[in-house]
């Protein structure tokens, strides 16, 4: 059952420190596990309801950008690096070769014009805490001039290798997670997009 507003935990940063407010765990009693055949005690349940507080660090511009309809990437601009000019999506804070800080760039237009499917899979299964509709159409997206291949999901259309896709963004009610970014096949209209998403 979803938590009520009063049961949720919220966190701000004040003076450089996390300030949690609200409820972060609801204790629930352990329950014994009996073997119904023998009537003997076999074990115990250990219910856990916890909230992790996690820093995005230098990747925060990517996750904040999604809610603004922007796809942020990073690029190595170190003149002395063998792989200078490489664009990374997933955004990497540091160049994996020279370990100098990458430059954060906006690749939204590049994605809108060059994204295509490298591979895909459709699964009807998910794990606990999944928020995506089932079946999930996983896609891996290539972009022209980008040295890596982003994992995402296809929200509208059927996946095929090399099919052109365009990004959509959860701009109306962002969750600030990777699920704020999805893709649709080229030619999809605004009215077909999932609730809250825009091009």
């Amino acid at each position, binding site marked *: 059952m979803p938590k009520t507003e009063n049961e949720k935990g919220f966190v701000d940063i004040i003076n450089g420190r996390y300030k949690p407010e609200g409820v972060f765990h609801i204790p629930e009693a352990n329950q014994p*596990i009996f*073997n119904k055949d023998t009537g003997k005690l*076999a*074990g115990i349940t*250990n219910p*856990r309801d916890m909230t992790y507080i*996690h820093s*995005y660090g230098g*990747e925060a511009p990517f*996750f904040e950008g999604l809610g603004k309809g922007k796809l942020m990437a990073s690029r190595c601009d170190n003149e002395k690096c*063998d*792989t200078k000019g*490489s664009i*990374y*999506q*997933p955004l*990497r804070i540091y160049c*994996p*070769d020279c370990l100098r800080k990458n430059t954060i760039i906006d690749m939204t237009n590049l994605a809108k014009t060059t994204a295509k499917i*490298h*591979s*895909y*899979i*459709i*699964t*009807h*299964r*998910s*794990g*606990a*805490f*999944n*928020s*995506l509709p089932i079946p*999930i159409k*996983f*896609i*891996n997206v290539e972009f022209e001039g980008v*040295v*890596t*291949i*982003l*994992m*995402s*999901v296809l929200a509208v259309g059927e996946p095929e*290798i090399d099919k052109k896709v365009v990004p959509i963004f959860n701009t109306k009610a962002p969750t600030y*997670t*990777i*699920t704020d970014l999805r893709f649709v096949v080229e030619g999809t209209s605004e009215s077909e997009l999932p609730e809250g998403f825009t091009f």
Partner: protein
Amino acid sequence: MIKFSDKQLKIPKLMRPVYLATVGMSKFDRAFPETRTEELCIQAFTAAADFVNMTPSELKQYIHTCYYGHFADHFGDQLLGESVIHDRLGLDPLGNIGVKTGGATGGSTMWEAVKAVASGYSDCTLALGWERMDEVPTDEGNHLISAAADKDWETPLGHIYTGYYAVMAQRYWKIFGKEEDSFRDTMAEIAVKNRGYARMNPHAHGPMKITTEDVKNSPIVAYPLRVLDCCLMSVGSACGIVCDEKTAYEITDNPLRIYIGAGSHTLRVADRRNMTIPLLPNETPDTYKDLGKRFPGSERYPGFTGFLAARMAAYYTYGMAGINDPIEDLDVIELHDAFTISDIQSYEDVGLRPYGEGRDYIESGDAYLINPQTKKPGKLPSNLSGGLIGCMHAVGATGLMQIAEIGYHVWNRWDEIHEPQEKWDAFGRKKPNDWASLQVQDAKRGLAISHAGVGSQVIATILMDPKNLLKED
């Protein structure tokens, strides 16, 4: 990295020879509702003592340091589980450490144990692994496994690791399998083979007598993978004890030489940049000169179709052991068959066939104990334990189970472990009426591949009869 320096390509060197003295395994199953983890670990350790005709107390006298493989702390809600097991094995106050490298945890645990002996720090070490995945509901288990992917960039996408993995299978299926029915059949044959071999293994969790039609008609998990294409999710423990030469011969008259190497690649498949294929000793640049022409779409390496970590682990370990052609130089192999299709991918990574031609290892019959076409012994039988598909995948124990199974063949003692009716009875399992020995005749050398997830970490372990080494120390 996409380019390597000479220093990084150095063939690893053990400062003194290391020997595998004994191994042991527990029963493997989906769940043990009335058995604590330590009971399974003690079962494995006791089996290792039995194997060298010692009591556990006697065997413990030789151990100097301990290496424990246990991947998923969060499944058991118990940090420092290694310390719990170490205590229950009665090995305090010896030094011990936990090792975690996903699905390769078992292999990595042995990697650490071997290095400790090779360096001279210890003369005898214990590598023991286990996994406990039965103590959460399945959907929560799926979430916990998905936490082994990138928590920000992948896990929120469905909380289902299969999805992150299966995109690789899809690409291989399209590019190298060419979506052919015959390729689909070859995948199914692996599932039939490995589950069939598991029928002869009392430890095995998933033995089945099935046909390729059964595999192809089983429910879809993530197309083209079906339920019977996928490995088991198991609970259990396995271990091995490694020593310097003097100590090894104090424990047993027949220790095996052990060589071991590791490779890695990015946790996210997304981050894998294009690079030149590193070559194994049985390959030349010409091997791949027309790969893109033969398999359009395969130009990117390793892309989604190869496991660089496995290739590098093979490169290092073949170099250490003097393997030039694994098909010719090895007699038995255990591969990480998490999925039928990834098993095929691994054949290429470790050089059983060149990239693009992995299916031929099955289709030729080389991978069988008895080649179904020629009715003669297969050139390099694989996964006679049943593998992850038929025997078990209890993550922290898997790589050690593979090493144990290879050891039983090279020791020529496979029957002793798998045949006794008492063991079948003790495990509550029915021995098949058509039980048959899978002992590889005259096995002198074997390889085990321990592999993590989408290929983030791979360990290659080679065991050899010391009288049949390929390379001088």
